[in-house]
């Protein structure tokens, strides 16, 4: 385990000026019995080394599909990348064969999943499952691999690791299982970690612990992180930037504090307004009106317009591109024709 002390460990993006991962105009389609569904329609974002990007949105917005596309884990043969590029380390992952991209998995880019119980193999001991990474990917001999497993389990905070390393997944609690998944993910010191709803299946108290663990690990290793969630609150302290997704597109992106304090898209506004807070005790909740769109029959123009309080005739006909609102800070983009009004509206 690399333990780095200084911020210099978070080198690559600052020095080279190049992001660790650059997703450009990614388009993904699924063929279903009801027709071809465009799950991602031109998604673009960058992740720098040492940076944490939160990808947020409702179910069906395309956030998990993005992660799957990056790691060549799209369900075959239903899902396929039909456009765009995924640039990593000078390669375009979208253009390469699945088996070549899989070589990057766990060594360069790693992923942790939502439900740790179904994501861990029930018939193998947890020590074995972590050691497998060293033995299969690095050719490490068995004893050494198990020793490294033990060190990892301790690092992620599993109590009594010497005994528990020989236990099976079902003998751990939910939070512990997620820690084990995290141990598996960071074992080969990847440069990028993707968390697909890592805390959704956990208790609220445990959620914070896991988030803190992730933040610590990132500080130590300088890896980049993509955190996918539908819970805006849980990622707030850990993420640097946010990308809000809706119907297969990124509709707002920027520094997370910027986005939360000054939402530039009506959907983001709606999401933030719908969060119950203890300053609004006794008041009615304000959800986002309507329901997520059917990806087989998207609305014309801007996909959000049927639910949007700011919608105009233009919104019904023309789909807005991501742009910087006039007069606001650089790096904060929104895909809305009336973003300036959204920002100033109160």
């Amino acid at each position, binding site marked *: 385990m690399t333990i780095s002390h200084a911020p210099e460990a978070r080198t690559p993006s600052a020095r080279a000026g190049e992001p660790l991962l650059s997703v450009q105009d990614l*388009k993904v*389609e*699924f*063929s*279903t*019995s009801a*027709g*071809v569904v465009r799950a991602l329609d031109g998604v673009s974002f960058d992740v720098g080394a040492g940076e944490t990007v939160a990808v947020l949105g409702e179910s069906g917005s395309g956030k998990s599909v993005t992660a799957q596309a990056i790691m060549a884990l799209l369900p075959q*043969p*239903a899902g*396929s*990348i*039909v*456009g*765009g590029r995924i640039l990593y380390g000078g390669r*375009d992952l*979208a*253009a390469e064969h699945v088996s070549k991209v899989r070589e990057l998995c766990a060594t360069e880019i790693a992923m942790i999943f939502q439900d740790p119980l179904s994501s861990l193999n029930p018939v193998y001991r947890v020590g074995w499952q972590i050691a497998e990474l060293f033995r299969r990917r690095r050719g490490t001999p068995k004893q050494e691999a198990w020793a490294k497993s033990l060190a990892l389990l301790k690092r992620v905070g599993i109590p009594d690791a010497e005994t528990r390393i020989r236990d099976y997944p079902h003998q751990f609690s939910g939070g512990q299982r997620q820690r084990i998944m995290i141990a598996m993910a960071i074992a080969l010191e990847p440069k990028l970690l993707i968390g697909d709803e890592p805390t959704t299946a956990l208790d609220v108290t445990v959620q914070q612990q896991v988030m803190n663990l992730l933040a610590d690990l990132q500080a130590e290793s300088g890896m980049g992180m993509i955190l996918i969630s539908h819970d805006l609150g849980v990622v707030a302290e850990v993420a640097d930037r946010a990308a809000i997704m809706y119907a297969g597109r990124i509709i707002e992106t920027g520094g997370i504090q910027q986005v939360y304090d000054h939402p530039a898209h009506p959907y983001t506004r709606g999401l933030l307004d719908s969060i119950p807070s203890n300053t609004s005790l006794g008041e009615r909740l304000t959800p986002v009106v309507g329901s997520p769109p059917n990806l087989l029959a998207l609305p014309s123009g801007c996909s959000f317009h049927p639910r949007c309080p700011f919608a105009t005739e233009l919104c019904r006909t023309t789909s807005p591109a991501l742009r910087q609102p006039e007069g606001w800070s650089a790096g904060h983009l929104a895909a809305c024709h009336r973003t300036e009004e959204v920002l100033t509206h109160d």
Partner: protein
Amino acid sequence: MTVPPTIAMQTMRRAHRARRGVTARITIPLVVIGLFMVGAVVVPILYHFDPLHTDVLLRLKPPGTTLPDGSFAIFGTDQVGQDLFAQMMMGARVSLTVGVCSLLFAGVFGVLTGLLAGHFGGWIDNVLMRIADVQLAFPSILLAILLASVLGPSLWNVIVVISITNWVVFARVTRSQVLTLRSREYVEAARTLGASHWHIIVRTLLPGCVAPILVVATVEFGHVVLLEAALSFLGVGVPLGIPSLGTTISNGTAYLSTAWWISTLPGIALAALVLSTGVLGDALRDRFDPKLRSA
């Protein structure tokens, strides 16, 4: 550079083909079974089939022979001179009758047991399932042979024996479906509304069980037909006067070297019938609920 979009189209086309395939898998077997039923009723009448008739001059004629009286023995004749085709269709009558009757009895009894065990639970469930366990400890052919030998050869005895051996499958499937349905809201609603046990069982639970029962019934039909044939083959099934496909095959074993068709062709007919029900059962299950997939 991107992956050509045609992969999506290819999968779409495959999905379309799969859907059309399911419909074919339902209609074709139904046609085959229908032909059997028609044949079983009509052919023996057309051929004036008489199980006791023997004609030594006409015995062991190969398939495709034209007989002296002008009729065409499409499958040849057997060791006593009977036309094999007519005999097979007569045997099909037996298979279909035994099949349908046993299925009805086994089905009704099994479904009832499953409903009671699943709905009431507790000691009723325990007792019924223990009985099922003990019965399942007997390989079904073994139990059938034992019962059949004790009761003696007769058509009704065969039906009774086969019903007894096969009720357990229905009971288990129904019970497991009831257990799944119990936790569904509409069943709980019925309970909360104060519906009587009878009402819950018949009006609420039973309709939800129809799909898996139907799937099981089609597969079990095949098993039942084969079981009857096996019992008749061994000599403990239908009595001597009634020509079952199994008895025909058994009679033919003595003439394997001289008249292979007597044993071979009835088997093909059996296989065709059972295969049809098997395919039908699979297709029905795919149609209703792929999650029911066993093997």
